[in-house]
């Protein structure tokens, strides 16, 4: 992305049309499934899967066309806003280069796999059709985000992704915990979006454009100007920091990582798609896309936060007994790795780890999903006998390696990839990031900051813990004896009722496990440098324009080659020692299973710290949630007592005025009418009295008028 020449296309360019079609198909899936009635004969899952398969084929075409060929920049005018000095044009468009097409391919492979998997997993679900339509909508949002070329479009799709995740996590919205989890996700993401908005505002006010390439060029111009470079660029720092906060919210980094464990309330396919592969990686992708705008202090903050989150996630995963929660914390940890990779200047490595992690983490979730679905079916079958248990609880699993062999093999493959065992894809990508972190530490320490060595130290420690926790999950789930059967010893043949999943669920998982092998990504399984993915993601830097962050990244990538051997050896050491330790603790010393049982009842300090996710939730509840709740209560009090009373007062006032007006109407207007009538009547009465019929009255009138005439005559 650094020195690529982008060819501009308009609507008729072949690549553009392909990209538009690829973007449109999931949207079509969403609309079709929403507009179809409930009585349609086609299975909505199969329809959605077919459409997504079509989109996958289109993205493959796009990939083959664009990979290592020309990169395309397509943009068009969307809105024109008239201002005093001319008009501002808001543009939309696509930026299609190596990173884009590979990411689209990964997203669509995983989305397609999740669609296939959900056909079995969500079978019998009441809102089956809605699920698939929402999956399609999410895929559309994610693809739009990947293709976007300017910050505004990125933000629009960022919000769409957040919204899709909200509806998907809260899919079983009638369950209060799920609704709460969805709300929490959305609110935490919203808090992070403040950062995005700040960055948008700063960059627009400085550059007048949202286009990524133009902003990069403008920043490079500013930096290269000799006078400017010495002035403070604090506004750029805040823009970069805002972007980092946004990424931290979406990618569950400290301190905004509290939503991801609770987001496991959603169905497993949702977790596989969103929380393993796509949505949480949107933060990392954003940072990579806007890498030019990040200044060196921001990069340091990013590094520290990434390392911290990786460590915290790994520690928290060590004591969970819910299988999905282990995977959730593992995701936080691996995202921490990616963010750390961006921070230390190895952004290509971060992207590479993003891609491999997508495959093996989604695979882990889906393999876990197969177990959980089988246990749910078992629970349903046993419900007549009043047996109730939590299907995700690892303490009740065990010994499943014989009963569900396919799941065991695939889960093992994914675990090996996660743990960074050689010959698996995770080893390659993690190795590259660790390499980058060591290079960074040497570079920074050379400038006098010695605490920089803590970063690779914690990175390697986290890798060690990764092996431990995933080994623990593997051991608890697949080895030993089936503890549910042991718990309900009276009920016979529980284990016989445990059915494996059908083929349509197994195929995507096996597919993903193939993608978790190292061979796919690199001919030499030990050296990531041979990886065809990595070598084409790395690009050079031209001297014509570049920004400090790009320079930094380039410098580090040149010196990181020195540390390859050291890193590989250290990674191997970590992996082997992790396996040995894990085997010893979890397989040999079986009493650790009792420790798992004790976690909820009587944990010691480290267990409690780990199990409660470093008490972050409780901290937030006591500080932020309480204060915001009291503000909300106070506002509602003001609203009810003050504003409503004012409005009531206005209402009463208008009624009083109406009464007064009625009285005025009755007295004056009617009075005038009555007065007129009275005058007429009285005059009439007087005039009538002349005709009383009494002779004496006639006499009186005659005499009176006669006298009046005489008086008038003579006066």
């Amino acid at each position, binding site marked *: 992305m650094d020195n690529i020449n982008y060819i501009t296309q308009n609507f008729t360019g072949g690549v553009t049309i392909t990209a538009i079609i690829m973007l449109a198909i999931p949207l079509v899936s969403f609309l079709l499934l929403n507009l179809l009635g409930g009585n349609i004969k086609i299975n909505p899952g199969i329809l959605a899967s077919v459409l997504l398969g079509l989109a996958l084929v289109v993205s493959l075409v796009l990939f083959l066309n664009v990979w290592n060929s020309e990169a395309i920049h397509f943009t068009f005018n969307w809105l024109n806003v008239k201002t005093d000095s001319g008009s501002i044009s808001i543009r939309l468009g696509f930026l299609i280069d190596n990173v884009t097409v590979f990411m689209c391919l990964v997203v669509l492979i995983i989305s397609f796999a999740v669609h296939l998997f959900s056909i079995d997993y969500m079978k019998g679900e009441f809102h089956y059709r809605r699920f698939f339509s929402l999956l399609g909508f999410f895929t559309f949002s994610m693809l739009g985000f990947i293709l976007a070329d300017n910050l505004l479009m990125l933000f629009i799709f960022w919000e769409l992704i957040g919204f899709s995740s909200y509806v998907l996590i809260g899919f079983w919205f009638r369950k209060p915990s799920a609704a709460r989890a969805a709300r929490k996700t959305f609110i935490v993401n919203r808090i992070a979006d403040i950062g995005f908005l700040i960055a948008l505002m700063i960059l627009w006010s400085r550059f007048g454009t949202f286009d990524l390439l133009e902003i990069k060029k403008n920043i490079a111009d500013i930096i290269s100007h000799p006078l400017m470079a010495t002035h403070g660029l604090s506004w750029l720092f805040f823009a970069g920091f805002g972007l980092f906060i946004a990424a931290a919210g979406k990618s569950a980094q400290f301190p905004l990582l509290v939503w991801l464990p609770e987001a496991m309330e959603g169905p497993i396919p949702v977790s596989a798609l969103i929380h393993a592969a796509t949505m949480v990686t949107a933060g990392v992708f954003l940072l990579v896309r806007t890498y030019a705008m990040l200044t060196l202090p921001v990069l340091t903050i990013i590094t520290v936060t990434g390392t911290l989150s990786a460590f915290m996630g790994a520690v928290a995963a060590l004591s969970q007994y819910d299988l999905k929660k282990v995977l959730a914390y593992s995701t936080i940890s691996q995202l921490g790795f990616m963010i750390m990779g961006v921070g230390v200047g190895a952004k290509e490595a971060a992207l590479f780890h993003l891609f491999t992690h997508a495959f093996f983490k989604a695979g882990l979730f889906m393999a876990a999903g197969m177990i959980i679905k089988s246990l749910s079916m078992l629970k349903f079958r046993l419900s007549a006998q009043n047996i109730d248990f939590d299907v995700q609880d690892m303490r009740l699993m065990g010994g499943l390696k014989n009963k569900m062999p396919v799941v065991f093999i695939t889960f093992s493959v994914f675990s090996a990839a996660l743990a960074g065992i050689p010959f698996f894809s995770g080893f390659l990508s993690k190795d590259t990031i660790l390499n980058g972190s060591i290079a960074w530490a040497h570079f920074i320490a050379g400038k006098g900051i010695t605490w920089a060595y803590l970063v690779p130290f914690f990175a390697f420690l986290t890798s060690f813990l990764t092996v431990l926790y995933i080994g623990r999950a593997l051991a608890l789930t697949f080895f030993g004896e089936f503890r549910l059967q042991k718990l309900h010893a009276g009920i016979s043949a529980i284990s016989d009722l445990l059915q494996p999943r059908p083929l349509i669920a197994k195929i995507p998982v096996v597919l993903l496990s193939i993608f978790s092998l190292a061979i796919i990504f690199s001919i030499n399984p030990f050296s990531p440098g041979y990886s065809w993915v990595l070598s084409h993601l790395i690009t050079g830097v031209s001297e014509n324009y570049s920004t400090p962050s790009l320079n930094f990244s380039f410098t580090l990538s040149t010196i990181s080659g020195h540390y390859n051997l050291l890193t590989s050896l250290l990674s191997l050491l970590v992996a082997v020692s992790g396996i040995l330790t894990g085997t010893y603790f979890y397989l040999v010393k079986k009493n650790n299973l009792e420790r798992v049982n004790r976690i909820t009842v009587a944990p010691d300090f480290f267990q409690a710290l780990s199990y409660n996710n470093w008490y972050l939730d409780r901290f937030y509840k006591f500080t932020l949630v309480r204060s915001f709740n009291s503000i909300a209560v106070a506002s509602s009090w003001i609203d009810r007592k003050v504003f409503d009373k004012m409005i009531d007062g206005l209402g009463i006032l208008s009624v009083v005025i109406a009464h007064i007006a009625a009285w005025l109407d009755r007295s004056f207007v009617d009075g005038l009418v009555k007065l007129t009538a009275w005058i007429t009547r009285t005059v009439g009465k007087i005039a009538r009295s002349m005709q009383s019929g*009494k*002779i*004496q009255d006639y*006499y009186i009138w005659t*005499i009176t008028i006669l006298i009046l005439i005489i008086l008038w005559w003579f006066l």
Partner: protein
Amino acid sequence: MIPVENYIVLSSALFVIGLAIVIVKKNLIVVLMGIEFMLNASGINFIVFSKMDKNIFTGQVFTLFIIILAAAEAAVALAIILNVYRHFKTTDIDKINQLKG
């Protein structure tokens, strides 16, 4: 000798009394009497004016005519009153208001 204003005051007083009787009184016969009053008062007035001029007797002659006419008119009026009484069964003027309108 006697100033003429006295005679005129007398005749106008009598006339006004007669008018008052006609206007106020309720009995038909009494109204008739009031009319006689007014006639006689006007007669006095005539005589007074004829007395002022030694050679003309017009006033005095006219008074004779008035008396005769008064008598004839009284006869006719009494006849009408009799018929009215026969019809309305009362002599109260206030009750005879069929011309009311």
